[in-house]
């Protein structure tokens, strides 16, 4: 049982997950440095799989390295770059090193990256991958070939409550839950009312009976960063008045502070919703704001009263 799955099952406090920065060289020291920065404040961290279709050190290698540095990985697997054989092999291979959390994603298209001439694979879609990964944990490959000692896996996926067709997103979450997803990290979003409708829909449809919802918030420090996400990141839209609010805050420091306050508000709102099990953090600031956020929210291994009382802090599990 991964620590993440235990925490989600117990449900005594909101879980905190985050995105691991992309690693390009620098040896294991580069992984260790990033792991040290995150470890005290989060329960598990996503080892990304060539995010935005840019090549980086691979999902499996980062996940394994992270676990060696006492940080619990959630290994992302995207359908863009590998066929069904390779994806099963990656999950099985990583499991040899104790990697249990797997997040199955469709993946941004190759045209979103810096090698748009690449061949896109998409041999499976994310929902199919959820089912295939769940099958591995039950003791068989997709072919049906038996796995004598099946790996422990905690399989999840991602859903975007903020992109059209909005009415259909709950049904898609349900489909992933029924395929075996035990957690859903939600896409970055700046429409609290859409998140609310989605979470309510998931509660009503029974998704949250089996599957934990983890909305994502982003730490940014400029209006430009918001505009960039709005214009350039597929599936992310930010209301103009939110960008204007940050842009109009004053000088650079005031803008950075307003960005933080916006993230804090969105986080508080997300965590207030019944059916939400925790939060996923993406940090584009790298200036200590992640620590400030979890402290202000009173969540995570370092600042949640429940965590510190029950000894589920990272200090007790890492060296």
């Amino acid at each position, binding site marked *: 049982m991964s620590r993440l799955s235990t925490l989600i099952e117990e449900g005594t406090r909101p879980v905190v997950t985050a995105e691991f920065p992309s690693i390009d060289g620098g040896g294991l020291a580069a992984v260790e440095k990033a792991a040290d920065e995150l470890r005290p404040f989060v329960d598990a961290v996503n080892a990304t799989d060539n995010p935005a279709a840019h090549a980086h050190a691979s999902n499996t290698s980062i996940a394994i390295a992270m676990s060696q540095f006492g940080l619990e990985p959630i290994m992302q697997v995207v359908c863009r770059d590998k066929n069904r054989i390779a994806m099963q092999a990656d999950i099985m291979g990583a499991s040899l090193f104790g990697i249990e959390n797997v997040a199955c994603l469709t993946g941004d298209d190759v045209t979103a990256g810096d090698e748009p001439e690449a061949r896109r694979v998409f041999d499976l*879609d994310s929902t199919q991958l959820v089912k295939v990964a769940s099958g591995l944990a039950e003791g068989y490959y997709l*072919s*049906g070939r038996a796995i004598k000692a099946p790996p422990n896996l905690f399989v999840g996926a991602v859903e975007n409550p903020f992109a059209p067709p909005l009415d259909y997103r709950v049904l898609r979450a349900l489909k992933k839950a029924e395929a075996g997803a035990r957690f859903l990290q939600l896409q970055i979003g700046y429409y609290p009312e859409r998140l609310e409708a989605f979470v309510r829909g998931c509660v009503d449809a029974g998704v949250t009976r089996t599957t934990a919802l983890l909305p994502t918030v982003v730490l940014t420090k400029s209006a430009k960063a918001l505009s960039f996400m709005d214009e350039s990141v597929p599936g992310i*839209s930010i209301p103009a008045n939110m960008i204007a609010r940050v842009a109009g805050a004053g000088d650079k420091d005031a803008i950075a502070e307003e960005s933080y306050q916006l993230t804090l508000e969105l986080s508080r709102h997300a965590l207030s919703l019944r059916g939400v099990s925790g939060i996923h953090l993406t940090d584009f600031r790298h200036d200590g704001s992640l620590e400030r956020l979890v402290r202000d929210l009173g969540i995570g291994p370092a600042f949640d009263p429940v965590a510190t009382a029950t000894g589920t802090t990272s200090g007790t599990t890492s060296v």
Partner: protein
Amino acid sequence: MPKLLPLLEDVVKKPVWDCRMCGQCVLHSTGMTCPMTCPKTLRNGPCGGVREDGNCEVKPEMRCIWVKAEERSHSPLNPHLWEEEFNDLRPPVDNRLKGTSSWLNLATGRDRRTPAGWQGVARERHSAVPGASMVEIDEPTMLPEGFHS
């Protein structure tokens, strides 16, 4: 006939649905919108990259085929049974069927054949040989059917 059929199917379905001849047609369950025309060939709903205006992440000028499919699945012209099937979990594509006639595959049931693991069962290994399920593959003659390299 088996050679003429794919040709005929292509001639009929290409102009109307931009058919890609995957050989395992699911059009009726996807609002009569071909999921293979999605640049990511997604068969179980839209990705997270759909634009605010409902257009495709990859081709901004094209309406997301799943946005279209979802709308069409609720059309009064769409039979209720098909509308319900919209939410079915569709299995991974069998890439061997590309270019074959889905009409023929429907008639023979070939398009509904999925790997044992998809059906949630572990396959008995070498079940034809008594006691063989205990034996590991250690010589080429024991390689499973379909091994060619």
